[in-house]
């Protein structure tokens, strides 16, 4: 694909939803772009970082979403256009600033894209972030396809500037990560010079009068929404059923009507401006049908807001029947898909349709299994986290006091599953592992005898762990932090962070030393290579048993996927078939049954383990765990 920075008006290109959003921002003349990576939002800033130089942008990976929004807001206050992107969890982090920023107002166009992850495919939670638009009285757009993703972004900047308010765009995985045709417009040639006007003030006080002003801005947004080209009705004048939808629900609904051959009988009203809703536009369409079905991802946001408009106007509108999440015609958790929507409509209008069999998805998996090697959700071959959890598992077992691991957000969250030997027992927000440890670390005075361990990755550490660490030291908590320094924000795609020595645009950056930070925060800090399993085990045990207070063990070893890009494998590893004990007493498949590095394979016919040459990274860690010393490594 050619650069999204090509100035080729009228040209149609294939873009990922997130790229379309990035292109929209470019066409709107954005100057400052900031984000903390998080699926499914990461490609927005990633794409812009690649063209930062040629488009003369400041693009940064900020340490967290709140800071990212602050960085983008500063551009806005200075009269430039700023873009901020994040996933749903990120909006929770940024919300404190956002819910003051709404009252303080903004100046240059300021757009906040939040990409939700329905079903939590790559998230710790499932959350519908649209509620923040209502909470903060902020205009909200929901793109339904790729062209809209670009157009809405552009439009959002304009509206933001007109209203002096940040504008939210809510995408979902199926919009952000799918690809489609997008017709390009012109890129702007010039941009204003930034200047902070000292006559202006950006703060929420006095809160009540600013709140009133905010409501007035929202009313203006409502008026704009009445005329918005993103609100579309498609269908007969008097439909038997009217589908109210937004975002990805639009395409699903159109497909469902084709499946059921109901295009002539059912109408679809697609709303692009889902907050504030255009009351008159909504009422005009409510009048057309007596039965309304809501199709939207996750929460009944559109559903409830439309019902509210109806309630206010029910005498004029007469009786209507509403279907959706409240009536249980549509699930209120997980991803939607055309089949779910088809069945919801078929439920309300009885037309012949053979639904997808209940075991369809199971059979699809089985069919795929014949084509794709079966791999459990787990750490990559050569991943240092596997070694860390292995050592921690042994240390906790030997310690014998029932110690447990408090988790955090990152690749190492997989420590909950078999890949991390089920060692991680909690998972919440970024930095919450250390926060929880800070609390557990106080409970010994009430009789808690179990050692407390928190895990945290390097990127997560800069993001949100430092306040918790300061709190722990200040308040005298007792726990061990395993700081998993793999020198990458690996789970979201290897974005750089303050510990990596480079910025989003590839410029050299100072390295903020994790060890030094922890020491400044009063922790006893040691550093170990997690590939040294015996040494790591011994360190963890000793730190658990001999030291009181905040202890940090930095597990330093680069992410295997990052290493693979710049260095050759360290070892050639092989299993001596004569020595391998296989399933017999003395081993019983430790390497493939428990350790489970994907680089090790179980050869059923031979009853022995083997190395999968294609994916073994040559880390050599398995040679240390084999009880028969059957796995051998040779330096390459």
């Amino acid at each position, binding site marked *: 694909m050619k650069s999204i920075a090509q100035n080729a008006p009228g040209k149609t290109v294939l873009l990922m939803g997130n790229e379309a959003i990035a292109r929209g921002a470019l066409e709107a003349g954005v100057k400052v772009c900031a984000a903390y990576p998080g699926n499914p939002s990461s490609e927005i800033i990633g794409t812009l970082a690649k063209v930062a130089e040629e488009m003369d942008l400041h693009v940064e990976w900020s340490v967290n979403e709140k800071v990212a929004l602050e960085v983008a807001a500063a551009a806005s206050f200075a009269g430039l256009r700023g873009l901020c992107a994040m996933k749903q969890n990120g909006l929770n982090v940024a919300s404190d600033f956002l819910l003051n920023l709404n009252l303080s107002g903004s100046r240059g166009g300021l757009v906040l894209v939040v990409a939700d992850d329905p079903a939590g495919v790559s998230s710790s939670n499932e959350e519908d972030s649209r509620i923040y638009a209502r909470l903060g009285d902020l205009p909200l757009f929901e793109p339904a396809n790729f062209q809209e993703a670009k157009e809405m972004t552009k439009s959002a900047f304009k509206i933001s500037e007109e209203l002096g308010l940040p504008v939210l765009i809510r995408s979902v995985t199926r919009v952000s990560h799918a690809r489609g045709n997008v017709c390009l417009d012109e890129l702007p040639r010039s941009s204003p010079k930034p200047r902070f006007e000292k006559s202006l003030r950006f703060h929420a006080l006095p809160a009540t009068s600013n709140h009133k002003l905010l409501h007035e801005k929202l009313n203006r947004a409502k008026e704009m929404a009445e005329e918005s080209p993103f609100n579309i009705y498609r269908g007969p004048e008097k439909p038997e059923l009217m589908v109210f939808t937004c975002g990805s629900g639009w395409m699903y609904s159109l497909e469902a009507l084709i499946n059921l051959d109901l295009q002539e009988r059912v109408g679809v009203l697609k709303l692009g401006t889902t907050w504030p809703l255009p009351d008159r536009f909504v009422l005009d369409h409510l009048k057309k049908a007596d039965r309304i079905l809501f199709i939207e991802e996750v929460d009944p946001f559109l559903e409830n807001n439309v019902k509210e408009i109806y309630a206010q106007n029910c005498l004029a509108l007469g009786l209507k029947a509403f279907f959706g999440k409240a009536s249980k015609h549509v699930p209120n958790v997980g991803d939607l898909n055309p089949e779910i929507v088809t069945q919801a409509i078929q439920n309300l209008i009885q037309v012949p349709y053979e639904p997808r069999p209940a075991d369809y998805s199971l059979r699809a998996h089985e069919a795929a299994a014949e084509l794709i090697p079966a791999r459990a959700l787990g750490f990559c071959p050569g991943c240092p986290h596997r070694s860390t959890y292995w050592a921690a*598992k*042994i240390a906790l077992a*030997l310690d014998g006091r029932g110690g447990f691991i408090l988790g955090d957000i990152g690749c190492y969250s997989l420590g909950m599953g078999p890949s991390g030997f089920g060692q991680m027992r909690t998972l919440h927000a970024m930095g919450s592992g250390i926060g929880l440890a800070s609390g557990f670390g106080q409970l010994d005075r009430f009789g808690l005898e179990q050692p407390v361990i928190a895990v945290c990755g390097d990127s997560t550490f800069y993001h949100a762990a430092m306040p918790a660490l300061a709190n722990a030291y200040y308040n005298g908590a007792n726990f061990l932090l395993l700081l998993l320094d793999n020198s990458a924000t690996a789970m979201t795609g290897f974005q750089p962070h303050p510990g990596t020595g480079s910025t989003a645009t590839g410029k050299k950056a100072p390295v903020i030393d994790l060890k030094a930070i922890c020491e400044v925060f009063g922790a006893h800090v040691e550093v170990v290579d997690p590939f040294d399993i015996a040494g790591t085990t011994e360190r963890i045990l000793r730190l658990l048993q001999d030291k009181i207070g905040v202890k940090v063990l930095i597990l330093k070893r680069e992410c295997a996927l990052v290493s693979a890009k710049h260095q050759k494998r360290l070892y050639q590893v092989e299993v001596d078939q004569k020595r391998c004990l296989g399933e017999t*007493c003395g081993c019983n498949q430790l390497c493939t049954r428990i350790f489970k590095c994907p680089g090790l394979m179980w050869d059923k016919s031979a009853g022995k383990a083997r190395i999968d040459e294609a994916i073994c990274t040559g880390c050599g860690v398995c040679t240390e765990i084999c009880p028969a010393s059957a796995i051998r490594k040779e330096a390459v």
Partner: protein
Amino acid sequence: METGEKINKGLKALEEKVFTQDLCAICGACLSLCPYLRSWKGRVVKLDDCNLEEGRCFAYCPRTKIDLDEVYQGIFGKNYEEIEVGPVRKIMMARAKDPLFTKKAQTGGVVSALIDFALREKMIQAGILTPRDGDLLPHGQIIKGRKEILSCAGSSYVSGPTLEALNRGPWKGGERIGIVGLPCQVLALARMKTSKLEKKTPIDRVALVIGLFCTWALDYIPFMAFLHERVDDRSIKKLNITPPPERILEVTAGNKLYRISVDDIRSFIRPSCRVCLDMTAELSDLSVGTVEGKEGWNTVIIRTVVGENLLKRAKKAGVIETQPLPKDNLSHLKEASLLKKRRALDTLNENGGIEKAYFTLSANLIKRILSESKGIAT
């Protein structure tokens, strides 16, 4: 039991029947056989599940279901029937002649002297003994010379995983091995020898088993915590329990001697010891203990030809000297041994019945132990 149902005789059963019942004797027989078990500070720790239906860990354990007749048949060619002190060829008193051994010894230095002699005479090429680390934690170690033997002399009243050293090696292959062990360890060795499972250990090269008398051993972690609360100096040099009726634990630490009543440490006795039938290490080639009222002398029970030959040669070479064991001492020994058996049966009765115990013992023998131990003063 349902017919056709497979009884697990692997790690799963070991965990259920031994670890969770707190019956592990920390003998070390299950260690270094596989990656799932490891010892740490006087405990055996399970690291991961093993789903094998049958395993050496279970088969070798001295606290899993044991047919005593089968084991005694395997070692002595006769059933378990000598209920006093086990099979006996000869009983006597003995002591080492070289002060090198007697000086460091808990009593008569016979064990150190005999292992040293067996090594020098090439009756064995390696010994497995139980040294203690700086904090009195015992562990099994392969020893080849006198200096190492002397470092293992004495007792800390804490048992350790001695037999792990046998499983772990390293062995060149071909060495004949002599092992000094507690009754539980000697029982485990007998189980290892008589097991029908594929061995993959040098158990068949164990040419000499010297048993140590034992009434109980202490649980390492709580005992050490207890000692360190009372003893200022962290480096404890020696522990000794004075003979009855005094029964005082003497702790030598730094330049000080601390005296602690044995009653104060009884709560640290391993539960496994409370169900142990064996005071005199009955499955050994020869067993060695103290002699009440005769300081500096060991009681020696010779049980096998191997044991008898060793003692004969050592005596002939002037390594040890012997005397007949006085009649009173012999009857005291038998009483003490019977008393341990009776206490074990009493404990098992309290804990759900002898029929559920880790060994099978005929009703007749149980009756004999109970009746013959009647009247022995506790």
